């Protein structure tokens, strides 16, 4: 299988200045030397708490912001060296659906023109675009009578379907789904998740799903990537990562996530102390150091290397769990 997305030591650092006359600048390492790859037709779930850099990573892939180091190959295009033409190609190949259904669509455009818009700017003739709009609306199981509706007339689930339809308009290869169901109710969430999976299987799409909901990730993804304060701490097949987490952070996250069965509430779990922390003023060494109960002096000093533990499972920890 071909590699659809390949990140090699990718970095996105922001500089923030402290004040108008304070020239010393702080560097926020929002995404710091992250390497992993997504194969064609795979669903990869990206989990992490607030400040983990998961959304920044997605924004880099969508070329909404420029990366500051490393390499990112998307379907054979090197993002850091992409020409205008390359970017145009990427705009067609990567589509995105964001979290908030209410703001995903332009409130002043009808459903039809929202869906047609990406095709129109990529040179698809209007009549063709109109036909395709009907087709993608069909694919997300929405009635054609909604074509003339405005977003404020639709429910959250319907809006999310239309956002997905628009994403499909240019027949993309990769879809980035940023918390696609977080704002939805359980019954609607199930509809959207099923729809996404059906589409993925039918069209052989590649998904990068960003979420903080581990139950959703467990359901939908083939592989899981776990980020903590800008670092990729663990990456591997879903079952491997959820059943045998190797990084203490992943373990903590799995323990903290509520399980949807009251009979399992007595299970052994270790709760992590403290807050996710801040990206500002990070020292050297493992970023999880202060919250990790296995931490040693070694962890404080050096940045942990990436270890391969078999089954395509990689972990970035000095003392991986057994």
């Amino acid at each position, binding site marked *: 299988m071909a590699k659809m997305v390949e990140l090699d030591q990718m970095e996105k650092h922001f500089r923030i200045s402290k004040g108008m006359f304070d020239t010393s600048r702080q560097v926020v390492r929002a995404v710091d030397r992250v390497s992993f790859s997504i194969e064609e037709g795979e669903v990869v779930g990206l989990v992490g708490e607030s400040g983990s850099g998961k959304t920044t990573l997605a924004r880099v892939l969508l070329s909404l912001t420029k990366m500051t180091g490393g390499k990112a190959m998307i379907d054979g295009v090197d993002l850091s060296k992409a020409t205008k033409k390359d970017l145009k190609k990427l705009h067609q190949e990567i589509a995105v659906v964001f979290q908030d259904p209410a703001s995903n669509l332009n409130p002043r455009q009808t459903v039809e023109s929202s869906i047609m818009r990406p095709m129109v700017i990529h040179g698809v003739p209007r009549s063709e675009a109109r036909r395709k709009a009907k087709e993608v609306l069909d694919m997300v199981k929405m009635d054609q009578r909604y074509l003339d509706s405005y977003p404020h007339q639709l429910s959250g689930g319907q809006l999310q379907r239309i956002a997905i339809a628009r994403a499909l308009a240019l027949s993309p290869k990769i879809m980035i789904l940023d918390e696609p169901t977080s704002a939805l109710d359980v019954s609607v969430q199930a509809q959207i998740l099923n729809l996404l999976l059906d589409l993925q299987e039918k069209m052989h799409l590649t998904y990068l799903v960003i979420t903080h909901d581990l139950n959703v990730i467990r359901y939908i993804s083939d592989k899981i990537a776990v980020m903590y304060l800008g670092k990729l701490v663990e990456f591997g097949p879903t079952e491997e990562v959820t059943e045998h987490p190797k990084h203490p952070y992943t373990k903590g996250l799995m323990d903290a996530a509520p399980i949807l069965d009251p009979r399992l509430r007595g299970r052994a779990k270790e709760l992590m102390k403290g*807050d996710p922390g801040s990206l500002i003023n990070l020292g050297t060494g493992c970023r999880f150091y202060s919250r990790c109960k296995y931490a040693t002096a070694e962890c404080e000093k050096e940045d942990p290397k990436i270890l391969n533990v078999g089954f395509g499972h990689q972990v970035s920890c000095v003392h991986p769990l057994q």
Partner: protein
Amino acid sequence: MKETLLSLEHLSIDYKIKGGYLSAVHDVSMDLYPGEIFAVVGESGCGKSTVAHSIMRLLSGGNAKIEGKILFEGWDLRNYTEKEMEAVRGREIGMIFQNPLDSLNPVYTVGNQVSEAIMLDRVEKQEAMKRAIALFQDVKMPDAGERANSFPHELSGGMRQRVMIAMMLSRDPRLLIADEPTTALDVTIEAQILEIIKELKQTHNTAILMITHNFGLVAEAADKIAVMYAGEVVESGDVFEIFERPMHPYTKLLMQALPRKTKKEGRLQTIDGSVPRILDKKPGCRFANRCPYATETCRTQTPAVAQISETHRCRCFLAPDEIPSDRKGA
């Protein structure tokens, strides 16, 4: 049998809107005992938050019409004067909210805001601050003494919610209403807050009324639950029983819609259609338009609440035996 602490009897709340009434809550009854966590779950707009706010008489705007009884230790709070309600709030019933940043006043230190509540019981200022710091330690706030002098925006989301809990615990109420207490928080912080709430129930015998849309939270912590749909409690009872043997079609479908498996094990259950806005109270089951088992009776008559076991109640014509328990919904 233990005395009920809070019991709602046929509580209905209608909002006056132009051209009629919007039925936000209809005929809700529930009993809450000391030392138990009672979760009210439901999707957005089902009226769960309205119920919580009405208990504290915190519904904003004067356009709500309330019927039924809100009995707290046997007294109907609806008959209390505003002055008497002030004595109930914080002292007898505390309440924490969804977004802890909005819920704290940005211009006062968190220590000030907690000790302000303590001082209502005629406690000296310094003593109140001392107690506030002790409370911060109780809710496991790191560097409690120092944090008391912080302003809300200087704290993380988890710490702010700890402040809210400390504030509402400060006068040792018998009941704590938690309205979506962890929705704005990260998973690891959610687990920490949940631990605190569970501990509270254990050490202080405080009853907790938890309002949430998060079934994970319910599964992890609740003793009893009430499932709400379109303003009504459709099913209530012991949490284990409801999760294992849901009776109401809505609860059943919801349980199968929860992502509890992997995609290899098949797709999730979905519920077609959408929640109706109840503008005029016509007879009929409010779930009938989405229910795969609905019959003509369901559309024309309002189902009564059936007592299935001592604790388990269900508002459905078909309960308890007419719905094949293993049949998948259409």
